[in-house]
């Protein structure tokens, strides 16, 4: 079992390693930057008050004067929620379509495997980079924070990573559905990126538009709030459950389509 997932993960092992190292270094750089901001003789939070509410919402800005608030904005809202969300949507956009487009799917499906298994295991292979990031980066951040003489709640840090797993998988599931629906991999990938980005924007804007908050419910970003976890220590477990449900629905939609379609026709 899981031969396909293992193979898929191995195919991208270099990418996973590079991504993990890159994000770890970037996080470390942000952490190292904090003392100079903290030591500066300005009231940074007063300045932030002047930002439009939509910007504050989009970047989850609560405070930049504590290490938690600073990390929530710089690493978790920006890198985790936005960049990695887009990355996994993009990456998943090629899972099926690129093999179909490049004629590799013929050989894969000539093996004694069901189409559901191919789809399911390819999707599961996304867990390898997701887990690698969420194991390595929190350790780097935790010890980085200690190194600059600050402290951070290990539980909050662990939770911000743990709850990001359903979020990133949900972004991947959006890409997976597009990968099944569209026959060209680069189109599927680009639409996946655009879609997740638009959902992010809609959620940010609608949150401060009275009466229209419900529009944001369609976005996976609504169900994962790193600022709330790090600054307030509140964990949105319901949100994570909603994301897990959405992942199941999206994978089933992809499976429904993939098991009925003509390959490469």
């Amino acid at each position: 079992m899981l031969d396909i997932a293992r193979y898929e993960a191995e195919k991208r092992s270099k990418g996973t390693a590079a991504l993990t190292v890159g994000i770890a270094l970037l996080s470390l750089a942000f952490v190292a930057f904090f003392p100079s901001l903290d030591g500066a003789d300005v009231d940074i939070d007063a300045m932030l008050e002047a930002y439009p509410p939509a910007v504050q919402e989009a970047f989850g800005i609560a405070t930049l004067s504590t290490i938690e608030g600073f990390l929530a904005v710089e690493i978790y809202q920006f890198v985790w929620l936005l960049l990695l969300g887009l990355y996994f949507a993009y990456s998943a956009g090629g899972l099926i379509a690129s093999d179909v487009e490049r004629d590799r799917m013929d050989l894969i499906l000539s093996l004694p495997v069901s189409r559901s298994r191919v789809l399911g295991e390819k999707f599961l292979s996304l867990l390898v980079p997701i887990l690698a990031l969420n194991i390595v980066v929190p350790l780097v951040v935790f010890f980085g924070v200690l190194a600059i003489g600050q402290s951070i709640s290990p539980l909050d840090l662990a939770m911000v990573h743990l709850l990001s797993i359903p979020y990133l998988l949900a972004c991947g599931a959006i890409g997976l559905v597009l990968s099944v629906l569209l026959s060209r991999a680069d189109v599927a990938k680009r639409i996946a990126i655009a879609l997740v980005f638009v959902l992010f924007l809609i959620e940010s804007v609608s949150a401060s538009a009275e009466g229209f908050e419900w529009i944001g419910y369609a976005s996976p970003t609504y169900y994962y709030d790193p600022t709330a976890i790090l600054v307030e220590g509140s964990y949105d477990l319901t949100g994570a459950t909603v994301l897990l449900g959405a992942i199941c629905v999206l994978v089933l939609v992809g499976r429904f389509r993939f098991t009925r379609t003509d390959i490469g026709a």
Partner: protein
Amino acid sequence: MAAISLDGLTKRYGKGTRVHLPGSRTQSNEVLAIDSLSFEVNEGEIFGFLGPNGAGKTTTIRTLLGLLSPTDGTGRVLGADVRDEGALIEAKKRIGYLPADLAFDEGLTGRRVLDYHASIKGDSRREELLELFDPPVERKIREYSTGNERMLGIVQAFMHDPDLVIMDEPTSGLDPLKQEVFHEFLRDERGRGTTLFFSSHVLGEVRQVCDRVAILRDGRLVALEDVDSLLNRGGKRVRLRLADELSETEFTTEGMVDLHALADGFQFTYTGEYNALLSHLAGHDVTDIEIGEPPLEDVFMHYYGESEEPADAEPVATPREEVADA
């Protein structure tokens, strides 16, 4: 039991919506790729599947593997109905496949790809096959030549010791020496009881290894017979130079088709009795003669006739070649 059987297998592409054309004509935008194919491939035979580009060979093969679903009719491979995914998966444990458009993940080594396939279907014969066909398995597939890629494809198709191997243009890209090794290998495989089904354009290959052939044209089966009778019907290509001046009518005898006058002789395809041709030629002053196999196109022509049929009952809006061989 037949290794492969087709029962009215039909595949149309497109949604089947009607398109309105100027002048109140309507046409279907469907493309009929294969039309009511019915034939059987016996266990333990080498079966050749011939036809020009766009005839529907690849569509037939991909439908038999469950990659495309039949529009009508069905097929069975090793007893499994191609519409039944569960049964087909069970049958695929004993089936090998070598596609025409062979593609592997380029960033991995040949060994890793074989390991992957082995983890799912087994590889009891891998080492033995790698001695016959020797792609550089330690190198990344990105560096492979077409021939090496093809050899890797052959190894993966046979390494789990399948009972049935389906191949789409298996020798394209192989050098002549490897082609010879491959043909010899196919004959040995038949000796072990493996059923081999492959599409081809190459008459020499078909003549050397096939027991029976099916010929496909525009998605329809136009011939199903022994290779020997196919070749007899194809005749011999004769080209000769004569010292005497003769007109075409003076020279022509029964059995000559496609006669062309050359500067100092004639070229024709001969499908008659060989002794009759020799006695006929003995009456002339022949300065040079070549007798050879006709190109496969000529054998096709023999079946397809000289002129294209007018539009079939099934209207077709797009050129078949583009879709049917996809």
